[in-house]
C-alpha cells in the first residue's frame, strides 16, 4: 500500500481519537487502582493500612516509573482533548441560532471538554494537597498521608469541591468509557453498544460513589 499518500496515523481524525481512547482507558485503569487504594481509608484502623500503602507508593521504584507514564498519559489526554475541541469548534465557524441538541444527544457527551477541564482543575488542587506538599514541600515529614487526608476532608468546602469534581468525573467517564470503546472500534453491534453503555454507566457510578464515600465518611463519622 505504499502507493497512497498517508498522513501520520496519530494526526488523522481517527488516529487522534484513538489517542484519546487509549489514554482514556489507561486513565480508567489508574482510577481503579487509585480507588482501591483509597478505600483503605475506610478500614477503620486509623490509617494504618492506608499509610502503608501510601509509603509503598512513595518509595517503590516501579511506582516511580509508572508515575511518569501516568503523567505522560494525562498530558496526552489533556493536550489532545483540548486540541480536538478547538479543531471541532473551527469545523463550524458560524453556529446555529436555534439548536436543540438535547433532542439528539446527552449533555455529558457534548460537554466532555468542560467536564474534563473541571476535573483537570480539581486534579491540580488534588495534586497540591496530596502530592506536591508531601513530596516536595516536606509535609511528608510532619504528618502521615492519613493525617493529611483527615485534615483536608474535615474542611467542608474542600469536601464539597471534591464531591462536585467526582460528579463531573462520573459524567466524563460515563461518556468516555463507551466513547473509548467506540473509537477503538469495539462496538460491533447495537446490542454490544447498549451493554457497553450500561457497563460504562455502572462503572462511572461506582467510581464516583467510591471516591465520594471518603469525604462523606470523614465529614460524618470523624
Amino acid at each position, binding site marked *: 500500500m505504499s502507493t497512497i499518500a498517508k498522513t501520520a496515523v496519530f494526526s488523522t481524525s481517527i488516529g487522534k481519537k484513538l489517542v484519546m481512547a487509549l489514554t482514556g482507558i489507561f486513565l480508567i485503569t489508574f482510577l481503579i487502582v487509585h480507588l482501591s487504594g483509597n478505600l483503605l481509608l475506610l478500614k477503620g484502623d486509623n490509617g494504618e493500612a492506608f499509610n502503608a500503602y501510601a509509603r509503598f507508593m512513595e518509595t517503590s521504584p516501579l511506582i516511580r516509573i509508572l508515575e511518569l507514564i501516568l503523567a505522560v498519559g494525562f498530558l496526552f489526554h489533556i493536550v489532545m482533548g483540548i486540541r480536538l475541541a478547538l479543531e*471541532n469548534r473551527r469545523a463550524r465557524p*458560524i453556529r446555529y441560532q436555534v439548536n436543540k441538541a438535547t433532542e439528539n444527544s446527552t449533555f455529558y457527551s457534548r460537554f466532555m471538554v468542560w467536564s474534563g477541564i473541571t476535573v483537570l482543575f480539581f486534579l491540580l488542587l488534588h495534586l497540591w494537597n496530596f502530592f506536591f506538599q508531601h513530596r516536595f514541600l516536606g509535609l511528608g515529614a510532619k504528618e502521615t498521608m492519613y493525617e493529611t487526608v483527615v485534615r483536608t476532608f474535615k474542611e467542608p468546602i474542600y469536601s464539597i469541591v471534591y464531591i462536585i469534581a467526582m460528579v463531573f468525573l462520573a459524567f466524563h467517564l460515563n461518556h468516555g468509557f463507551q466513547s473509548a470503546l467506540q473509537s477503538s472500534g469495539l462496538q*460491533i453491534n447495537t446490542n454490544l453498544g447498549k451493554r457497553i453503555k450500561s457497563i460504562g454507566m455502572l462503572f462511572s457510578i461506582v467510581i464516583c460513589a467510591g471516591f465520594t464515600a471518603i469525604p462523606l465518611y470523614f465529614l460524618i463519622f470523624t
Partner: protein
Amino acid sequence: MATISVTLKVWRQKSRNDSGRFETYFAKDINTEMSFLEMLDVVNENLIREGKEPIAFEHDCREGICGSCGLYVNGRAHGPLKGTTICQVHMRSFKDGETIYVEPWRAKAFPIIKDLIVDRSAFDRIIQAGGFISVDTGSAVEANSIPIPKAIADLAFEAATCIGCGACVAACKNASAMLFVSAKVTHLALLPQGQAERYRRVIKMVEQMDAEGFGNCSNTGACEAECPKSISLTNIARLNREYLAARLVPRQYDN
C-alpha cells in the same frame, strides 16, 4: 381541513461571500396537510407576487430519497420528526402561532451558496477518493457466483441506505462526517466484492474526509439520532476498526 399560521425566521444570504441575516416571514392559513417544503413554496409564491426574491432552498424528489433537501428547522436537522427528511415533514407537526427558525446546514466543509443552499461536494470528493469497488463494465463475474450470507447482505444494505443529505454533519456538534463515511466504508467492507480494496479504500476516504475540514467524531450519537435513514453508530465503530486495522497492522506489501 385544519389550517395554521406560523412565523418564519429564515436565513437569507445572497451569495457565499455575503454575511447573511435572518428575515421574518408570515405564513398564514397554512393547510396542515401541506409538507414543510410546500409551505415554503406558498411563502415563495407570495414573495414573488410582492416583487421580492424567493427563498432559495434545495429540494428535488420530495419523497425522502434523493438527499437534496436539508434544512435546520427549529434547531433540528430535517425538523422535528425522527427518521424523516424535511420534505416528508408535514405542517401538522407544527403548532398554530409557532415561530419556526429555518437555517442552512452549518459546517466549514459545507459553505453556503445562497440562502439555505450549501455546497456538499465534499461528500462527492470523499466517494471519488475511494468509495467504490473497482470493476470495469463488462468484467463482472456471474452474479450468483458470489454468495453472501443474508445477515451480512442485510447489514451492508442498511449502511447503503445513506442518502448523502449531510444531516449527520449538520447535527454533529463537531460537524463531523464520520457517519456518512462510515456508512459507505461499512457497505463495501462487509461485502466479499469489496475485499480487494478494503484497506486502501478506508485510508483514502479518511484522508479526504480530514482534508475537507470536517470536525472529529466525539461519539455523541447526534448523527444517528438525526439521520433520516437511521444509519447506525455501529458503522462508525466499524470505520474506526477498519481504519486502524489498515494503518496499524503491518502487511507484507507495506514498504
